[in-house]
């Protein structure tokens, strides 16, 4: 009490505040995290602007010539300088195919993370706020599902949905089925976490206050509980983005995911796998490298975010 320390005034404006925050400090003092963030950002940009920066349009059949098929990367003997990373079995430029594949992989990843977070948060809020039998039933379902690996459930959902819509499935439907499979297989994590934080928030005074005012339950949950339980959801979502990308790639690799007409990274790897024994290693290698680097970078960001947002670990 004797000594009053001078505290620097908090800067104004959201940018200055962000730059001054603990989170940002821990970000730029960890070079690995900065590198991971830059790599992730680069992948996102490539995916978003694939149409403009890809050297070839792999969807335009007029552009593809079977004469160009299975060319090695440009720096190897027999390579063609038009195709930096070589071509696949149909003469598509591999670099462009990877860029478009990346876009599809990220799109599926984001869509499924959004969907599963939506389901999980909704179930968690409902379960935590309502309690009682509903809570028991919902959490029991989550428990059962958590004891099975996500990939198994995704495969199953994929199989069922395929059976429900027999015949020649359209590409859009195939993509939707994959998104749905991943979302259904990963929601319980969000639900568990959100339920726990909802129960904590529910017992706090501000919630009691709004209950006394007489706000309807749905409004309390959406306006007052929800914003306070979203922190951990962000962490799970980041880590789950990596998991979703892996599941999508695995499903596509197994041949039950995204069809080869519009290949994702997993589909490209599967196509290349058929040519591994012919010595055309690049058809598999470059998509695989892109996938591995992307997942590693996102994982590192997720790890960092978890450490920063979890005060226990500091």
């Amino acid at each position: 009490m004797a000594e009053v320390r001078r505290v620097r005034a908090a800067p104004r404006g959201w940018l200055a505040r962000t730059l001054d925050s603990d989170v940002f400090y821990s970000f730029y003092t960890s070079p690995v995290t900065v590198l991971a963030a830059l790599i992730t950002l680069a992948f996102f940009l490539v995916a978003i602007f694939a149409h403009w920066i890809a050297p070839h349009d792999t969807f335009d059949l007029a552009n593809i010539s079977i004469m160009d098929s299975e060319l090695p990367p440009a720096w190897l003997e027999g390579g063609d300088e038009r195709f930096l990373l070589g071509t696949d079995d149909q003469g598509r430029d591999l670099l462009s195919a990877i860029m478009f594949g990346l876009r599809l992989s990220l799109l599926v990843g984001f869509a499924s993370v959004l969907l599963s977070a939506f389901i999980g948060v909704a179930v968690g809020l409902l379960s935590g706020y309502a309690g009682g039998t509903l809570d028991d039933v919902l959490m029991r379902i989550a428990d059962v599902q958590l004891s099975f690996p996500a990939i198994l459930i995704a495969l199953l959902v994929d199989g069922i949905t395929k059976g429900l819509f027999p015949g020649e499935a359209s590409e859009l439907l195939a993509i939707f089925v994959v998104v749905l499979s991943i979302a259904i297989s990963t929601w319980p994590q969000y639900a568990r976490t959100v339920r726990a934080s909802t129960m904590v928030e529910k017992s706090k005074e501000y919630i009691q206050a709004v209950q006394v005012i007489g706000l309807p339950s749905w409004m309390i949950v959406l306006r007052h509980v929800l914003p306070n339980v979203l922190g951990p959801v962000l962490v799970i979502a980041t880590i789950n983005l990596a998991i979703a990308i892996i599941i999508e790639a695995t499903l596509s690799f197994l041949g039950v995911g995204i069809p080869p007409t519009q290949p994702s990274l997993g589909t490209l790897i599967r196509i290349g796998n058929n040519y591994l024994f012919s010595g055309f290693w690049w058809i598999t290698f470059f998509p695989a490298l892109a996938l591995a680097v992307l997942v590693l970078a996102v994982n590192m960001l997720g790890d960092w975010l978890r450490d920063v947002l979890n005060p226990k670990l500091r």
Partner: protein
Amino acid sequence: MLMFTLRRLAHAIVVMLVVALVAFSLFQYVGDPIVGLVGQDTGDKEREELREQLGLNDPFPVQFARFVYRAAQLDFGISYRQQRPVVELFVKRIPATLELSFLSALFALFVGIPLGVHAGLHRRSWTAKLSQSTALVGISLPPFLVGILLIYLFAVTLEVLPSSGRGDVVDVGLWSTGLLTVSGLKSLILPTITLGLFQMTLIMRLVRAEMLEVLRSDYIKFARARGLPNRSVHYRHALKNSLVPVITITGLQLGSIIAFAIITETVFQWPGMGYLFIQAVAAVDIPVMAAYLVLVAFLFVVINLVVDVLYYAIDPRLRVQSSTRGGAHG
């Protein structure tokens, strides 16, 4: 103890019934089973007779009860795609999957624990840091990529190990084993590593974290104060206590290994249950899918039950908790 076991058993039975319901709904709502059984030229009247004969017009609960009754006797019907009894298909493939899974679990344990102990004891050494970063890469690499990488390295480039199949197998009764021939053993190496790598990194990270935790505890300080040699402190006191959670995780991961075997088996064209399941999903072969689902769920439930009860028996703290809180969860 008995109450706990009974409660877990009841829980397990409920889970199995739910899974059976899902599997049964597959038959009910995905495609028409009659279409899978008869040809194009079968008339409507004959179809209706067959429907009646198979009991497909009975009410839902009756059909479900019949399904559970038959499943309990391992009767899952006939594969749409291969036109053979599903059980027959599975019996042939179970040994392949189980051999691969157990070897992978052993690999994960016998490589993961020493690496984890090392990383925990000498956490500033470069070898520990190397294994830590390898673990991060191992967790980020999807299993099928690891498989492709190994195939390219050892089968395509070096040509020392086979890339697919089980090699020569020897039949021991109903069980066909690849453990008794050289080519069988050689064929096992790459799939085992592929399947076990993820679990190995998991165990390694877990053992390391547990070791670090245990080494900070008071009884280790006391053991040191008693002047016990490092070796005794590390391996007799620290390691022993850090292995309890490892046992649980290993038990639970055994189920995941069997499930992840789907991917490894596809990469290596390994004639196991997982490969069968993938082919069934691609062809919408419902009886095979349903049987796989029930079978894997059964394995999971049994493993979970055994691990839960074992854990409860090993760790006295849980018993105290459950008697004060009136019920142990999870």
